[in-house]
């Protein structure tokens, strides 16, 4: 019995590792995805941001002559270039300029009577460049305003501080590590669940519908080994690819964290990565029943299909069934409770999230592990029953 299962298992493993699709979904993507999204993506975004920020932006000043010294201040800020246009709004939309500031023509007269003057800054929020230009303009104008206040106070022989009773300073007391865990805890559960699913998916389709399509299902079914042993060998193969995909992702994640810690630990000025060994242990523990569940469900779904293509169209809706509940980790404020602990995929997603954040509730962990194991056992049973059905194996 064990000999047969081992025989089938070894053949299936040999077979699928010669398939490029499996290798990509089982090995390449899981290894690359974590470093890419934690280090690669932010680095890329940061460098794009810095680049845009450093670029010279074009701004227009309406009635600039009314505010003496402002144009000089803008130009000496170094990163803004003044351009003359008639209709600033359309110029912004046409991206001829990035932002504009509008002064009233009677600025000086109204300043003299201590009127409070509204000075609009126009920009296009959908453009990064425009937003940067707006911020720079605002800084320059704020300084300019400060200058006016200071000179007014000076005329009256008063101290500058008079107009500034206090300064507000906002400080984030969360450590860089805590910030890192927070970010990771939102996305990692989702990523791991999806990788576990896609790791199993191609193998499941190849070993069931793919075999029917290529005519090997009939070949293998006439061999004298019981069908359930064949089904078990196939299930174990699918499970293996799912587990390998997940474990490689976890290893890659741990390595990325270790690397980022050794290189100063910081991804940016206020985020650092940190995942504790206990969190890794919980993730590994939870992914075993989860991978079984995915494997058995995908195997059952793909068994119902006659061709690989048909299997793909059957499994895509199931992907959505997994993706949506898995995204619960991204929604802030949802915490595990007894009911959520038995909802498939939602429970795993939240459990991984809490583990990464360092919250371990043994009760929840036990319930989630047990319920997922029960669901997996049911799915394995269904997959085996389907494997015995003529109408599933031989469709006319």
């Amino acid at each position, binding site marked *: 019995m064990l000999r*047969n299962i081992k*025989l089938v298992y070894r*053949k299936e493993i*040999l*077979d*699928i590792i*010669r*398939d490029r699709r499996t290798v990509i979904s089982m090995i390449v993507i899981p290894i690359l995805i974590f470093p890419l999204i934690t280090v690669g993506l932010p680095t890329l975004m940061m460098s794009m941001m810095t680049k845009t920020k450093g670029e010279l932006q074009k701004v227009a000043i309406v009635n600039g002559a009314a505010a003496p010294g402002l144009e000089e201040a803008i130009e000496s800020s170094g990163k803004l270039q003044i351009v003359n246009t008639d209709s600033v709004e359309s110029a912004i939309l046409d991206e001829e300029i990035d932002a504009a500031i509008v002064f009233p023509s009677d600025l000086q007269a109204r300043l003299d009577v201590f009127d409070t003057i509204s000075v609009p800054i126009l920009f296009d929020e959908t453009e990064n460049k425009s937003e940067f230009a707006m911020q720079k303009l605002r800084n320059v104008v704020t300084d300019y305003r400060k200058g006016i206040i200071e000179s007014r106070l000076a005329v009256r022989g008063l101290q500058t501080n008079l107009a500034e009773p206090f300064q507000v300073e906002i400080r984030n007391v969360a450590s860089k590590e805590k910030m890192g865990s927070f970010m990771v805890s939102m996305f990692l559960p989702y990523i791991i669940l999806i990788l576990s699913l896609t790791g199993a998916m191609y193998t499941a389709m190849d070993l069931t519908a793919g075999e029917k399509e*290529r*005519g*090997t299902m*009939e*070949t*293998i*079914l*006439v*061999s*004298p*080994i*019981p069908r359930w042993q064949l089904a078990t060998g196939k299930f174990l193969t699918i499970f293996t690819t799912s587990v390998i995909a997940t474990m490689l992702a976890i290893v890659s994640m741990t390595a990325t964290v270790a690397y980022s810690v050794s290189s100063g630990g910081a991804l940016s000025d206020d985020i650092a990565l940190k995942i504790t060994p206990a969190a890794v242990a919980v993730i590994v523990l939870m992914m075993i029943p989860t991978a079984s569940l995915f494997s058995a469900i995908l195997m059952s779904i793909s068994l119902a299909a006659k061709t690989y293509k048909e299997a793909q169209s059957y499994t895509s809706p199931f992907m959505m069934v997994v993706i949506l509940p898995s995204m619960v980790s991204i929604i802030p404020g949802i915490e595990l409770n007894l009911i959520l602990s038995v909802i498939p995929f939602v429970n795993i997603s939240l459990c991984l999230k809490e583990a990464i954040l360092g919250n371990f509730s043994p009760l929840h962990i036990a319930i989630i592990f047990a319920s997922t194991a029960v669901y997996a056992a049911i799915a394995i049973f269904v997959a085996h029953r389907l494997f015995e059905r*003529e109408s599933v*194996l*031989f469709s*006319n």
Partner: protein
Amino acid sequence: MIETRNITKVFGDKKRGQVIAVNNVSFKVMAGEIFGLLGLNGAGKTTTLRILAALMKPNSGQAFLCGIDVVGEPEKAKARLGFLTGSTGLYGRLKAREMIEYFGKLHGLDSKEASVRAGRLMEILDLSEFAETRCDKLSTGNKQKVSVARTMIPDPEVLILDEPTIGLDVIASRTVVQFINSEKGRGKAIIFSTHVMHEAEKLCDRIGVIHRGNLIAIGTPAELKERTAAADMDDAFVELVGHDVAQH
């Protein structure tokens, strides 16, 4: 060696409702005998052979291989069986040698024995130079040879061949036909299905004509021709199944 007793198989079909694919079919095939199952497309040949190979269960009736009930002890029955059809495929990503050895091992051979037998079969079938070639890279003829080798590696006592020459060119069909004849010489009980009349006439000791699930005649090619007063098997077949259906 091969026997069916009143087997009947009914399929539930979405469009056609209940389809009686095989209706109360009984026959026996002895050791050293080639029995041909002759019938039009859809006559029930594949279903009959699948029941014999324990791939499907009959709704009623019994089937035996070497006296073993295929429904009661499918694994034991299949251990005596070589099964080859026009549609049984190969694992494309396995090498020819791996494919053949795998089926030897599934039949209980140890690695060493499987490798010795695979080597010998590949030599007989002129496959040795392709031993390390992946099955999906082989020509149609060589693929069929690998299929023959994987069927023969356990040296089965019973052979069930469902249209084994379908889609093959002349050379590849000849390989299969030669193999059927030589296995007959080695005392195997062979049942094979076809809708090609002259192939059946040339190869078979006895022929069973199956039509719409019913076994309507059984006998040697000579007997069938005599019974219908026909000059060749084609005419005999048309005579047996009736002119109306033979026209399409």
